[in-house]
């Protein structure tokens, strides 16, 4: 699937005018005009400085893992969140926790991601106890980590898709 073709499918989420707008915004964020978004260019948006998940989202958007977000990656990342595809949204949510994106949420990954959000409100021991218990609950095949299928089962009552509902109702 070539880059252009994949983009077209993703573009289906957005109208041409919207894409224009997104491109203008992309340019605005791309302070050094390099054509790519570097981490600092996102982290420097003032309102994002307090958001603990900016780095995670950046890494998820950065599909080719080159440390930068191209416009194509920008649009692709946004469309999985702006579309109506429930599975896409669940996958995105899964990727938040699956740091190395190997398709499994491990004990350490779950701990690290929670720690980003919880800060000093819990001790390490308390957080570890919650992590261990969650993995035991989710882990059906006894491999001590959480696959996407196991994740979907755990969150099926949470209606993740509607929580990530970016389109108008």
């Amino acid at each position, binding site marked *: 699937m070539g880059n252009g073709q994949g983009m077209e499918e993703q573009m289906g989420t957005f109208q041409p005018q*919207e894409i224009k707008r997104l491109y*203008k*915004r992309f340019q605005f964020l791309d302070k050094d005009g390099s*054509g790519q978004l570097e981490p600092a260019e996102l982290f420097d948006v003032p309102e*994002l400085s307090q958001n603990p998940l900016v780095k995670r989202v950046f890494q998820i958007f950065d599909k080719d893992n080159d440390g930068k977000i191209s416009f194509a990656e920008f649009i692709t990342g946004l469309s999985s969140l702006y579309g109506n595809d429930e599975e896409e949204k669940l996958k995105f949510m899964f990727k938040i926790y699956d740091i190395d994106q190997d398709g499994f949420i491990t004990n350490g990954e779950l701990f690290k991601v*929670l720690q980003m959000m919880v800060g000093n409100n819990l001790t390490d021991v308390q957080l570890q106890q919650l992590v261990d218990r*969650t993995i035991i609950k989710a882990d059906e095949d006894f491999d001590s980590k959480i696959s996407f299928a196991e994740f979907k089962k755990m969150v099926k009552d949470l209606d993740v898709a509607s929580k990530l509902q970016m389109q108008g109702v």
Partner: protein
Amino acid sequence: MDLLKDPVNDRQVKTLKPPPHRPLSRNLMFPDKLKNKPDWKLLRDHLQKEGRIAKEDLFKLVADCNKLLKNEGNVLYLQDPLTVVGDIHGQYYDLLKLLEPKVGGNPENTKYLFLGDFVDRGSYSIEVIILMYAIKLNFQNSVYFLRGNHECRQLTAFFNFKEECLYKYDQETYEMLMDSFDLFPLACIINSKFIAIHGGISPDLKSIEDIKKIERYHEPPRQGLFCDLLWSDPVDQEQGHLDTAWKSNEVRGCSWFFGGESANKFLQRNNLISIIRAHEAQLDGYRMHRWNGGQDFPVVITIFSAPNYCDVYNNRGAVIKFENNTLNIQQYQYTPHPYLLPNFMDIFTWSIPFVAEKITEMLYHILQTDIQDDDEQISESDIQQFKQLTKQAGLQKQSTTGSSQGAQKNTEKLKNKIKFVSTMMKMQRTLREERESIIQLKGACPDKRLPRGILMKGKDAINDQLADFNTAKSVDLINEKMPYAQIPQESIQIKKPSTQRKK
């Protein structure tokens, strides 16, 4: 014991042992060498690590214990040496402490009488029940339970035991346990001198024979002798003064307060010297109600065995040790337990609303439109550059740069999208804040019934243990009341054996 593994070696807190990954196997729980009795020590350690047992094994454990309970009368008769235990309320880690040799005594060589309230409030009620039933099965002639007011369908559904059953097992298991609680005896005479019950005495209690006449194998009624034994309280007055012999118990919303007059009358009539009971939290884990003056034996003794009740009362737990006709109190401090989120929430249920909110917030800030921004201001060179980068020649044909009305519509659409995103953001933030307000991150109240806001103010303002206790107690007072009848009072009748009334 099969603990949770760490396959990619990335588990962070390596000094903490993880819980067992699987339930305890049947042949370990009921080893051949014990001939149908459970290995209570293995269970004790397994449960301490937050291990589970399979539903079938729990059913077998309870069924075996029910056989013993059915052979016990409404009134037990025990002699010292004996350890008497008050409310435990699901505090498994504190139960482990009180079973230690230096506290209550090793069950292998200690006789035990538990006064009820094993479940609710704390979050390890299932573990408490499993261990206690296992111990009783191993020491049939030296471990006894009485029924507390929480051992019933009404309270366990209102508080958190039912929830715990549904989380760890299912509805069938919950109902099975309710039927088992129906079998618990109601009172005990110790050394022919003391009467032990969970709550207190009753205007309908003239003689011990009255208790024996009760048909006990069902949900306790909302009034009458059966109810009073589990619910009534001694008056909170130094001398036990009460205007009338019995006063309506407004704290409980049912049953009575009794004072010295009623208590002494009952004790004298039945040749007893004191009422041993539980049912009320005590700062020191016990209270001597010396209504007949300092020199005399206390008319009532309250014993309370759940230290740091609800994680906030900051009290000691205590047990009574009867030996050679003397009575000693052994106190103990709270034992920390593993951290739990309210409702046994898992990490995803807890964090996903927050994650969704933060993502929405991020997109809002990344994509926010400049108010001045206008389609007309998008230059031709921008469009060319855009074309090059996106290679969207096909889509371009459909572009509406020619029609300003069409362009207007699309601008509106995008602006509305962004407006919607910001509304969603606000809503999710409110939802998350509401949820987090019930999560006390330092010393979580297990059953979420304690109104925390007031408690937190109290704790900040005062640094005094007694004040803490009193603050907690006054704030928790609503939870000492009998809940309004929400569920039908009929319970599932089990077959009554013909030899119910034994002495």
